[in-house]
């Protein structure tokens, strides 16, 4: 995909977004308060915070899985909830990768990857062809017809990333996608994700609790403080790409700055 000639415009916007988790009894829990966020086209934004800071809720709101209790969101300039219910067409440019791969155990890898196309009515032959292509590009060559239970954790997550990418989403949401992986696999996957983003220039919102991971990947790091979750600070990361050396002093300096901001916000 070539870089767009027009100036960067926000493809995702939240305005005063807040969310309360309903509880069975007692007052609702305030999970998110007053989140104003703009994500520009092609930008990689990482959302960092401790467990329970509402970062997953924020991502689920952006994916249309949760309707915000307050405020509004815009995807590509339209409010997907304007009709009072979820407008699937408005969320069509959005692809989501979950913390768990969430592969369907009854489908082979290529059928899992091709599932979004099947929902769009694409025929089986084309579906399989495109899914196999994508699998090969993501390091799953030779496993196209394997069942999910035959894959390692890292490969399952690769397949779930392929499933999110097969519709060529302009916006990719990732909810701690590497959280359950071992450190070595995690490093490889993070580097691969950076390559992918450099290649496709898609917009990415990436939730993580790892500050180095956020600094490695993101153009901007958004810090959330917990209970209720609100934006504490936004740190620009202007390190040149491709980033490879996480031990470089410049890299470590940004990591320290982000950590200091987060600790200051926690009080």
């Amino acid at each position, binding site marked *: 995909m070539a870089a767009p000639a027009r100036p960067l415009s926000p493809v995702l916007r939240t305005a005063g977004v807040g969310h309360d988790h309903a509880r069975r009894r007692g007052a609702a829990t305030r999970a998110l308060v007053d989140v104003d966020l703009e994500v520009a086209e092609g930008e990689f934004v990482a959302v960092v915070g401790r467990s329970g800071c509402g970062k997953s809720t924020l991502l689920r709101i952006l994916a249309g*899985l949760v309707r915000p209790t307050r405020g509004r969101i815009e995807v590509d300039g339209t409010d997907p909830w304007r009709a009072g219910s979820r407008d699937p067409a408005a969320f069509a440019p959005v692809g989501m990768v979950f913390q768990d791969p*969430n592969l*369907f155990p*009854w489908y082979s890898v290529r059928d899992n990857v091709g*599932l979004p196309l099947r929902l769009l009515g694409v025929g089986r032959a084309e579906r399989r062809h495109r899914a196999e292509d994508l699998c090969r590009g993501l390091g799953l060559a030779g496993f196209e017809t394997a069942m999910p239970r035959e894959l390692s954790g890292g490969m399952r997550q690769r397949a779930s990333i392929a499933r999110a990418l097969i519709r060529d989403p302009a916006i990719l949401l990732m909810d701690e996608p590497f959280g359950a992986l071992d450190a070595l696999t995690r490093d490889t996957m993070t580097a691969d994700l950076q390559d992918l983003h450099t290649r496709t220039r898609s917009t990415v919102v990436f939730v993580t609790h790892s500050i180095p991971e956020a600094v490695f990947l993101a153009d901007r790091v958004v810090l959330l403080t917990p209970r209720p979750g609100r934006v504490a600070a936004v740190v620009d990361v202007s390190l040149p790409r491709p980033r490879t050396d996480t031990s470089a002093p410049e890299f470590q300096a940004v990591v320290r700055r982000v950590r200091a901001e987060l600790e200051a916000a926690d009080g």
Partner: protein
Amino acid sequence: MTGRATGLLGALVTVGVLLGAWWLAVAAGASPFVLPSPAAVGEAFVALVRDPATWREAGVTAVEVVGGFGLALGAGLVVGVALGRLRWLERAARPALVAFQVVPKVALVPIFVLWFGFGPGSKIVLAALLAFLPITMNVLLGVRSVDPGHRDVLRELGASRWATLRSLDLPTAAPAVLTGAETAVVFAVIGAVVGEFLGGSAGLGHLVVVAMNALDTPRMFAAILLLTLLGVVLHGTVAGARRVLVPWHTSAGP
């Protein structure tokens, strides 16, 4: 020795012990009217199997069982999915389901004979009735056990209700449905045979009653043996379907 061979040997030993105990009981002086010898039952069984009339009766029973089971499977899938997906409907139907569970369904045979006649109709209905609940309850539980993460995936993709049913709810429920079907097919055999006992002029159940009235105990035992074999074949078919329908599930393991 492989596990399979050990299992086969164990099964043979079990059958041998049971036959030995039976033979001992006969040798100890049990009346042949009460307990015929294994040899007498074997003879009667061979005679029964050689008689083409037996196979007509077996055919009647098989049609009743398969028909009743098929009806129960269809109705159980529809009702189970509906109750599993719609909480309000399940709450509304709960008392009826409990009543349905506790009513001694065999006691309904006279009513079914009245409504559906002495032919296979009343037996199919009883077989279906007995098989219906295990299927429905398992479908209901199966539909309820859908992984929320899987549901999120389809919701995020904007999948329709129908697509969600087809790619998520039914595959999730399938292993439980098959478990229900295994129980249900055995219940269907019971339903058909009891129906034949109480109001019939055909089928293997009727054959048992005729043998009893003629005080032909070996023939009675042989007919029961044939019924058991019918049940084994049907149960084996449903159990075998697991390996074909849900090969991805751990329950279909080797």
